[in-house]
């Protein structure tokens, strides 16, 4: 009986991994490639539509009967030119850049010190401090923005970039600290002990040993923090009043929409240009970005 059982077809040399030999090609097409294609299409179509609309001249925008809506008939840069030369868009870009870089640097410095103290100095109560940092990460901006607005007003920094640079660290520091704690934990204790025996101070250990070894973690935290501040909306909407101090997301939404006339071309061009910096940064550091996203969740 058993002798009649013949080995199945997969005994021939097979380079596929694991058990994928169990799936035949036609079946894979329906169960894997087709759904994946739909996912990718749905997830990316808005960006395609954004780009196409930004490049269409005004008369093509709403005329779907004479022109193919899915492709610009005579592509134009008029919307981008309008944005750059006739609106405050360049200053919004500059503001967003300054605010993002400023708050990222502040958060990174504070987080490195805090993560090192919690993870390696192990002062009394460091465990509780770590827990408090995690809880701080769970406090959403939509609960904080009203009292923060009152506070910002009292400090006299309402409607300035400082208001944003000082408030963004409230969500960046908990995140970066949590991420860096994980990185510091993975660096062997022995290195630090050797340095201590050789008479290095805590500061020297941090700057000469820990930081060079955790550069990937620093890049991850920095990029993630930069993206989070670039994307922030509710604080920027609440704390900034004057047009020249606005950030890109707030500026595009509040200044480019005038009454009932929607200038879709300019709006889409604004959205496209405002997304490009983060997308470029992301495309250079995909792996760091993914590792910081998953790393923060995994703990």
């Amino acid at each position, binding site marked *: 009986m058993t002798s009649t059982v013949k080995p199945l077809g997969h005994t021939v040399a097979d380079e596929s991994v694991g058990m994928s030999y169990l799936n035949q090609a036609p079946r894979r097409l329906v169960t894997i490639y087709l759904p994946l294609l739909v996912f990718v299409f749905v997830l990316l179509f808005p960006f395609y539509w954004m780009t196409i609309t930004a490049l269409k001249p005004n008369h093509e925008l709403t005329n779907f009967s004479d022109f193919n809506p899915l492709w610009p008939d005579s592509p134009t840069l008029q919307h981008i030119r309008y944005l750059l030369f006739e609106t405050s868009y360049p200053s919004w870009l500059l503001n967003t850049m300054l605010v993002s870089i400023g708050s990222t640097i502040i958060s990174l410095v504070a987080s490195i010190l805090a993560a090192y*103290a919690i993870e390696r100095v192990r002062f009394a109560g460091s465990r509780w401090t770590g827990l408090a940092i995690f809880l701080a990460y769970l406090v959403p901006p*939509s609960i904080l923005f009203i009292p923060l607005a009152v506070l910002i007003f009292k400090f006299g920094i309402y409607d300035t970039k400082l208001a944003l640079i000082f408030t963004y660290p409230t969500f960046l520091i908990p995140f970066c600290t949590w991420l860096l704690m994980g990185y510091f934990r993975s660096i062997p204790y022995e290195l630090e002990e050797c340095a201590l025996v050789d008479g290095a101070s805590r500061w020297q250990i941090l700057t000469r040993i820990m930081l060079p070894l955790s550069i990937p973690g620093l890049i991850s935290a920095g990029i993630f923090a930069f993206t989070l501040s670039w994307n922030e909306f509710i604080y920027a909407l609440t704390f900034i009043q004057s047009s020249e101090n606005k950030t890109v997301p707030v500026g595009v939404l509040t200044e480019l929409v005038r009454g009932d006339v929607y200038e879709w071309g300019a709006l889409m061009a604004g959205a496209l240009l405002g997304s490009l910096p983060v997308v470029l940064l*992301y495309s250079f550091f995909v792996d760091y970005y993914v590792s910081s996203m998953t790393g923060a969740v995994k703990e």
Partner: protein
Amino acid sequence: MTETTLARADALSAQPSPSLMQSKGMIGLLFMLPAAIFLLAFLTYPLGLGVWLGFTDTRIGRTGVFVGLENYQSLWDDSLFWLSVFNTILYTVAASVLKFALGLWLALLLNEHLPFKAFIRAIVLLPWVVPTVLSAIAFWWIYDAQFSIISWTLIKLGVIQTPINFLGDTTNARITVILTNVWRGIPFVAITLLAGLQTISPSLHEAATLDGATSWQRFRFITLPMLSPLIAVVMTFSVLFTFTDFQLIYVLTRGGPLNATHLMATLSFQRAIPGGQLAEGAAIAIAMVPFLLAAILFSYFGLQRRRWQQGGTDE
């Protein structure tokens, strides 16, 4: 050789030399100082201030006095507030369930052996990387009442006769904002769950297949239990972000039509900033806290309990 090194290291870390111990508290305090200042001044203090504001009658430009529970009493009788509570719960539950189901599906697809896997994974994450407000503006145009590309395609295909009124009708608007939130949340769920899937050893699946398990059984009894601690954390975050969502609604509907999509966060903003009633806005924001705590505890403990399944005791 390695063993002796390890043993010595253990001894060292067990009892560090006394000179290290001396100023631990002082060094710790110094290093914690910058983060602590920021978080106390701009997070803890505002949180307390928010609770206090909820008990006052503060308006923009006028310091309020303590009025006790007055704000909460008026909210209790405010049908718009209860509508926003209902909307927020509906929005959170529907969007979280869809995000979880579709995100897990996408993660499973991406876990297959694919060509250009890294590239696909990178572009799939784009909706999460691009600023929400900017992608929401693109959706605003996609959902235009007259010139929506979706309506145009469906009319061309002969599915519908007239353009869909995506954001003008109460039911449509609710479905639309929920689906847009799902669109933005899928990549986060998928990519984080994918990281978890990649840690599951293929030998478990191979062993189960040898024992005659179907692919559904392998998913149900291997993948899901191994993944559940991560699912708990990912969904806790997802619920938290969805419940407190503001940007998407503010761009797409501003709470309309007929307040059908007003969430607690958007109502709080509307009352406090354009409306000037800081105290009432703060009270609505504080009213979100119990819901948030319940959601966090529910999704955290509800799913965390399955951790025993990871123990590897077969039954």
